[in-house]
């Protein structure tokens, strides 16, 4: 029997899932497979009008049914336009699934209720089978409500803030996981089943290991470098195989025989600390080879068994320690000394790590990669395969999220490149959700001791932070060190340790080290306020000299959410509380950033080797160029995610906007000057009438200019370091105010409202900046309440390897969020604004903690604040 797909009749296969059939068989790649277990909703299609998870649906079930995929909605469904108009997405990988379900909901809603907006609760319920890792839920709520109200029925809509939003909402945007042709083989990683073992032998089974030999469809295998021949966690890549189909590749992977000589393993960090515990890195050489999860180079530190550290950052450290010791001896009530822990948070971008490699006839290497660092992939791939950088071509057209885990030569890239070399054809490697949750990177768990001492007048006299990172086989914790950036110049001693165990390595994750420090420090500050019988805001206003946060504190003082918060002890089952947290981040930039503008067919094409992982840098470049040229936004086409273009920055360190924005502005200024040479009546600044602009662009056909990232006034704090990174002057600031409702019966915390104030200077694109901040609130709520990687205590095997067991916040779990920008303080920076992707992520969980305490009188010390912990605390 046939099926009807988007109005076309086609036969139905007897095996496989509907998702596989639609994507591979029919080329309809709009529906994404992100979890493969019906949890995330990215694969949703309409079957006889009903939203259905196509990853679970057997393909043969499509027989006799009518299927509408996101492509079949046509791109002009009011919901699709509303998603673009409200910027209801970031990376866009989950968007097709959301759009399909929201379209069905909106059509039903309007049929039942007429053109009135649906409420937040109804929308959350209808979309509860969908997850957005970027956390674009605020935009999704407003888009769906607006579509329900009929606000997107008309043909004419203003240009969306995110130029690629219509493509993402229509399912047209192609991600790396969507690519591949008939000659593309499927690659699979073979992973260690041992927590700690010497690899004696990797036997390829029936796969061949050398190029050239063998039959055309014979699978290939390559060993993946295991440093020093020792695997140190279950799930560590050992080899990779490829075959013409996924099924054959998995079969071949099953035939790879790895012989291990097991070594004693150590799984828990307590156990790892014990004298005589098995050592992961017994020799200095092995210690030097330990992977590091810091974004900047990890400074050297001493080792003692499995413990590395301390890495010390101090300001009059001895004074701080003396004061704290004395206070401890004298039982000073104004000494707050507490311990806080956090759990491992997994990046889990909805597009998994994915790479497609092809070796060209001329010996060059073409890579399609889901990466946040196009240029770093070029540099590392060239070094790895002994090529000139010009021989490596990396493309990342649309990238389905990164959050820090998609940098450089990750396993997927390495495996695809090696396999393609041996196979002699293109090979793609796409991690499964399970692999992603096991070994796709995580923010390591932490244990942090914080001590604060105040005097009778409530001034901060000393601070100490000792923090221990639990990053599995990796090192590089920097939690305590970030304490140097908060609360003035009071004497302080800050010490970071790592404890290594036989568990998977960490990776830098959005504001590395920031959220765990804020979780500890900001709750300790609130505790001090309580000891001083003082308002937490008042205390911070006295301790905190940062001018951006001081401006934000003034706004908070008048905020109804804060000013009118409940006071006194609360009773009853549901208790409401409000908490706040302050945070900071460094201002970083990429001094080498470039944007090239070229006049092509009377329009302006902006090119750069940067990439958009959902931050919206495509839109920032486009709108900056259009503004400075005085041109309509539609006349500027932005082409990024291609390493052959001029240098662009990697998407990490909150530096895309303050690097690419000024480069785009300078390029536009240079192009404008070039246009004026040809058409002198074109004004030097401000909007240009379309006729004049058209004339000038026609005259300038083929002209190309490059804009650079001008140096800041007074220079930067550091020179341009490795990987095009410099630290600029001034710290960004944020304040989060969070309201929660605590169900004291069942132990559930429900964040209800959040106010996020950001001091990042001038904001380039208000809506997209707001989207980032709203998404950080969602991720912070996940960190605070739900997210926790869990492992088997005996083998270290990660157990939370699907999205049921690793719980991301859904649409119904997030607070209504308002964002405020204080836009002063970075006038020394070209463009007057800095990045915000990280500073907005630092304080969210801490604000949740303080709100829970305000609601219940019980202070959480461990993340996530699970029902069991809350009930235990309230007992």
């Amino acid at each position, binding site marked *: 029997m046939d099926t009807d797909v988007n109005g076309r009749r086609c036969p139905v296969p*007897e095996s496989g899932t509907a998702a596989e059939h639609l994507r591979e068989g029919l080329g309809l790649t709009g529906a994404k497979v992100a979890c*493969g*277990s*019906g*949890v995330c*909703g990215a694969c*949703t299609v309409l079957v006889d009008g*009903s*939203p*259905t*998870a196509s990853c*679970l*649906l*057997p393909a*043969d*079930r499509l027989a006799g049914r009518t299927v509408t995929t996101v492509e079949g909605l046509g791109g002009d469904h009011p919901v699709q336009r509303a998603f673009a108009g409200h910027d209801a997405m970031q990376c866009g990988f989950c968007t097709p699934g959301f759009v399909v*379900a929201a379209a069905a909901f909106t059509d039903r809603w309007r049929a039942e209720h007429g053109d009135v907006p649906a409420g937040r609760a109804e929308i*959350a*319920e*209808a979309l*509860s*089978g969908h997850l957005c890792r970027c956390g674009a839920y605020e935009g999704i709520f407003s888009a769906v409500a607006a579509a329900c109200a009929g606000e997107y029925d008309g043909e004419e809509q203003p240009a969306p803030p995110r130029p690629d939003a219509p493509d993402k909402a229509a399912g047209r945007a192609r991600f790396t996981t969507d690519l591949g042709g008939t000659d593309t083989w499927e690659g699979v990683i073979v992973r260690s*089943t041992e927590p700690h073992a010497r690899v004696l032998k990797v036997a390829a089974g029936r796969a061949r290991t050398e190029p050239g030999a063998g039959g055309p469809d014979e699978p290939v295998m390559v060993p993946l470098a295991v440093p020093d021949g020792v695997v140190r966690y*279950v799930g560590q890549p050992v080899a990779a195989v490829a075959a013409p189909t996924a099924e054959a590749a998995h079969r071949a992977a099953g035939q790879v025989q790895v012989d291990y000589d097991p070594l004693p393993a150590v799984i828990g960090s307590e156990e790892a600390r014990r004298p005589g515990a098995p050592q992961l890195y017994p020799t200095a050489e092995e210690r030097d080879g330990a992977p590091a999860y810091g974004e900047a180079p990890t400074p050297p530190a001493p080792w003692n068994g499995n413990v590395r550290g301390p890495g010390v950052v101090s300001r009059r450290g001895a004074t701080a320690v003396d004061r704290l010791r004395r206070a401890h001896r004298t039982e000073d009530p104004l000494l707050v000394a507490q311990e806080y822990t956090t759990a491992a948070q997994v990046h889990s971008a909805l597009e998994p790590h994915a790479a497609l490699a092809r070796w060209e006839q001329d010996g060059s290497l073409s890579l399609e990669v889901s990466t946040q660092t196009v240029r770093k992939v070029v540099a590392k791939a060239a070094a790895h395969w002994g090529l000139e950088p010009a021989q490596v071509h990396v493309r990342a057209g649309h990238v389905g999220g990164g959050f820090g885990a998609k940098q450089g030569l990750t396993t997927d890239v390495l495996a695809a490149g090696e396999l393609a070399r041996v196979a002699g054809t293109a090979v793609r490697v796409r991690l499964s959700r399970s692999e992603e949750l096991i070994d796709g990177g995580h923010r390591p768990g932490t244990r942090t001791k914080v001590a604060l001492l105040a005097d009778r007048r409530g001034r901060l006299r000393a601070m100490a932070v000792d923090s221990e990172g639990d990053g599995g086989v990796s090192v590089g914790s920097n939690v305590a060190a970030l304490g140097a950036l908060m609360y003035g110049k009071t004497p302080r001693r800050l010490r970071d340790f790592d404890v290594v165990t036989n568990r998977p390595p960490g990776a830098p994750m959005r504001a590395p080290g920031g959220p765990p420090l804020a979780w500890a420090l900001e709750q300790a500050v609130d505790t001090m306020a309580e000891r001083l019988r003082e308002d937490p805001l008042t205390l911070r206003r006295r301790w905190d000299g940062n001018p951006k946060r001081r401006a934000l504190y003034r706004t908070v003082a008048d905020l109804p959410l804060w000013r009118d918060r409940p006071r006194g002890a609360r009773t009853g089952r549901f208790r409401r509380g409000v908490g706040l947290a302050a945070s900071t981040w460094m201002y970083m930039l990429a001094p080498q950033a470039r944007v090239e503008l070229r006049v092509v067919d009377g329009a302006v094409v902006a090119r750069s080797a940067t990439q958009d992982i959902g931050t919206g840098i495509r839109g920032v470049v486009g709108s900056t160029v259009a503004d400075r040229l005085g041109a309509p936004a539609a006349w500027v086409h932005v082409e990024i995610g291609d390493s052959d273009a001029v240098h662009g920055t990697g998407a990490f360190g909150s530096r895309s906007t303050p690097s690419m924005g000024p480069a785009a502005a300078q390029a536009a200024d240079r192009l404008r000057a070039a246009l004026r040479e040809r058409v002198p009546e074109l004004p030097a600044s401000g909007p240009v009438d379309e006729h004049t602009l058209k004339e000038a662009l026609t005259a300038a056909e083929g002209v190309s200019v490059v804009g650079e990232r001008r140096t800041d006034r007074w220079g930067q704090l550091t020179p341009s370091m490795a990987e095009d990174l410099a630290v600029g002057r001034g710290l960004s600031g944020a304040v989060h105010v969070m309201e929660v409702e605590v169900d004291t*019966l*069942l*132990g*559930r915390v*429900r964040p209800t409202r959040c106010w996020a104030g950001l001091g990042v200077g001038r904001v380039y694109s208000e809506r997209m900046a707001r989207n980032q901040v709203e998404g950080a609130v969602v991720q912070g709520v996940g960190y605070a*309440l*739900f997210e926790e990687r*869990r*492992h*088997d*205590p*005996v*083998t270290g*095997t990660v*157990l*939370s*390897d*699907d999205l*049921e*067991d690793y*719980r991301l*916040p*859904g649409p*119904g*779990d997030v607070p209504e969020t308002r964002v405020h920008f204080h836009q002063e303080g970075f006038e020394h920076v070209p463009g007057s604004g800095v990045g915000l992707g990280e500073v907005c992520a630092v304080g969210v969980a801490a604000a949740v903690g303080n709100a829970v305490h305000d609601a219940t009188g019980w202070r959480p010390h461990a993340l*996530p604040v*699970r*029902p*069991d912990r809350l*009930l*235990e605390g309230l*007992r």
Partner: protein
Amino acid sequence: MILRPVDVDEALAHLGTGALARAGHTGAAPPEPPAGADVVDLTGVDGLHGVHPGPEGSVRVGAATTVAELAADPGLARSHPALVRTAGALATPEVRASATVGGNLLQRNRCSYLRNPAFSCLQDGGHGCPARGGDHARGVVMDSGGCVEPHPSSLAVALLAQEAQVELACAEGRRRVEAHELFAPDGGAGDHVLAPSELVVAVHLPGPFAGERVGHLRAASRSHAEWPLVEAVARLDVAGGTVERARIAVGAVAREPLRLPQVEKALVGSRTEQGIGEGVERAVAQVQQGCTPLPLTGYKVALLGAAVRGVIEEALADPGR
């Protein structure tokens, strides 16, 4: 091969040859059917569908009825609100649209060790339970000595409270069992006691109480789409403000869904306006004292008590029809 029987007898004949039954296919992983195994698709079988009212308010629900159909049935919402509320709160809209009543009752448990090919256990033919000495934080609080993963079915909890019967068919004929007889405390190597050649055909719901009052609670960390830590369903028969009968069932605490007869008994005679009385408190405390928590599930003792009290309070406050 995929077999598409049109009636129950044909389906049973296929199952008798060792073919594997497939319904909503929402619990697909694991296990995938072994390569070459025949699959019997039950969705086209005549007589397995729909919500059919019978005499005295009773209702027959076909086993292949989807959870979404159950949750959206207006007649059932009036007559059996406890079941409808439970159905509407489980999983996600997409899963409810595919998942069937029979599949929900017979689904595999959610233990992450069982789902991980690196481990073997009592449930897949191995020995011992790796979760017992490992991570069992979502495990049972009433330990039966074997597997420690709670039964996953939410509908089963509601059906216990509804005193439903389950109609089974096999080659020898049809029979009805009480819903709780589908499950067993040790569970053996599975999550139900049905033979592979047997089929759930329908669920039979007795008519509602004259003064039906209900409550339903799922304790979980998120608002939707999460397996509950404890689930509780309450049905009360209230006449003139007095509880005359009570049915309380709980899930996610043991290898099988459970009725709490001692609490039900203690509730008889309660006045709705007075809330939970001392006798009921004592009965709940007894249930808690009977718990045998694992090292990581101690919290479920408190949570079970809270959920039972909470669901009773909700039912006492329910204005009814």
